């Protein structure tokens, strides 16, 4: 019987600072594990160290690179994540996963990605996965506090060239990208790509407002997908910490369509 609590060592082969508290880590798994590793954008890993427990971290790399490495964006906001961001290239993290369902596969549809703050982490994986697919048009809408809390800045130029890329900051501007200040909801004033699936990742307070606007724009609840977050331990749908309604974020989520959430009477 497989032991779901067994952890594997993953070596940090690259560490890239994103902002004061956020780092992008490229991890190399053990050769057997890496060779067979597969994931879908939106899935997450349980990442930890002995003595510090684990934290769920979304994968932010291209699934096509999964046989070579995975990338995790970690923001130091608690005991475990602060310890993880202090690690250096060559150090090891302990990982389990991937967990969860991930975002639905995109076929014959366009994509609108809406991210708030650190919520953008799993959406990077979506952009990388579909970025070169000529049949899929992508509209990217990111809202962030200020220019000091942004991440993936290096990719902005490329994303702007390839996609309809929009950034807004609560405070200040970013020349070439964020022309005005405001919230991510302000970016929804513009015409949205038609025939699209909409993937939203951000803090719960953002979901409520964004979904409300999307519904007003007559977007169908089944085309809106949100990634949820809750405390979790097992990743197997047993420990009960991440339950919502009759489902588990770790196993049935973290991605749910707004239709599903509505059926579960889950209020945003």
């Amino acid at each position: 019987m497989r032991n779901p609590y067994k952890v594997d060592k993953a070596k940090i082969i690259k560490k890239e600072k994103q902002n004061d508290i956020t780092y992008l880590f490229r991890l190399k798994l053990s050769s057997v594990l890496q060779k067979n590793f597969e994931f879908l954008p939106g899935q997450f890993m349980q990442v930890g160290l002995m003595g510090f427990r684990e934290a769920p971290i979304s994968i932010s790399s291209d699934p096509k690179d999964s046989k070579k490495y995975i990338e995790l964006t970690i923001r130091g906001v608690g005991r475990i994540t602060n310890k993880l961001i202090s690690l250096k290239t060559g150090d090891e993290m302990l990982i389990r996963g991937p967990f969860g369902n991930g975002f639905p596969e995109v076929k014959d549809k366009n994509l609108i990605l809406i991210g708030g703050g650190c919520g953008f982490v799993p959406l990077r994986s979506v952009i990388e996965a579909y970025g070169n697919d000529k049949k899929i048009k992508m509209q990217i809408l990111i809202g962030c506090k200020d220019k000091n809390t942004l991440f993936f800045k290096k990719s902005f130029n490329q994303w702007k060239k390839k996609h309809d890329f929009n950034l807004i900051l609560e405070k200040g501007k970013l020349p070439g990208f964020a022309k005005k200040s405001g919230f991510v909801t302000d970016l929804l004033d513009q015409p949205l790509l038609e025939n699209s699936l909409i993937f939203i990742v951000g803090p719960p307070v953002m979901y409520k407002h964004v979904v409300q606007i999307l519904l007003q724009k007559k977007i169908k609840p089944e085309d809106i997908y949100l990634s949820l977050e809750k405390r979790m331990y097992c990743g197997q749908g047993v420990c009960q910490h991440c339950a919502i309604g009759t489902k588990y974020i770790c196993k049935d989520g973290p991605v749910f369509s707004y239709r599903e959430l509505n059926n579960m009477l889950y209020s945003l």
Partner: protein
Amino acid sequence: MNKQKLMKLLGKLMEENVLFGPTKEEEIVIRQIRDLKQIDWSFQIPKQSFKHLLLPARERLLEQKGAQLKEVFDIKSQVIFGVNILDLQALTYLETIFSEDPYFQKRKAKTIVIGYSSGIPEDYRKYKIFHEKYREDKLEHMMFDIFIEEQKNKNLKVFSGSEKGQKVLDKNGIKDYVNIEYAGPIREEGPDPDFVLKNKQAIEKVTAKSKVFKDIGNICIACGKCSLACPLCFCFEHEDVKDGDKITRERRWSTCFFPEFTKITGGENDMKDAAQKLYYWYYHKFVRMTDEYKFPGCVSCMRCYKVCPAGINIAKNLKNLKT
């Protein structure tokens, strides 16, 4: 079989295994039995359930010493004697919930479960409205190795419920037993409509803001005793423990009444008051579990009521929700 033969069997099993059973202290509790005279033969529902013997309150999962990291299984051969029908039902459900958990399953493989019935438990009669119907085919849906039924003439009728149980009986020269084939935790006809489905519907149609939950929320102190005493509360968390150069990852019982149960970094917490916690607890037991496993997270043992400092009575609350 008679009691003398049963004592002889237990004595034999004690030689090679740790034996646990009901014993009377101030109340009836489950303890390691070192002398068969310790066993309480009233078979009333003990204060604790038997869950800690298959799902310990703390257990080691992983251990790191220097560069070496390994899985740890602290498992000893054990015999659990005197499990009443309600607790047997609860162990059966737990076994299904933890069917893919190697720690639980390895422990269960090393455990001989001996159920005992001296008739329907006293409490079971008392809370008649609340419990699931007692059916003749009940044993087919119970996970046990040996089951002993005390008959009116004090003779003991013996059943075996597994290959392991048969082996033990055969090895000890007990020939007069009936084999029961385990047919899964629920009957073919599906869950008990009165107990399982009606309670599910009753909870689904209300929220934490309803009168029943508001009222009990006002008196609940969120101490979590109910969930610790419950034979079917199994939620847990992980904790890393440092001891010199050794670090151990442990799995520990948790309870949804604790303040940090659903809290995430950054402070989001969607269970803010006792009414919400109670609703979450009832919802898990009667809606989510029924949805997931087709059985509820309650065997109507009433331990939650007996330990509750605020006197919150689950049977009464479910009745109120249904009227």
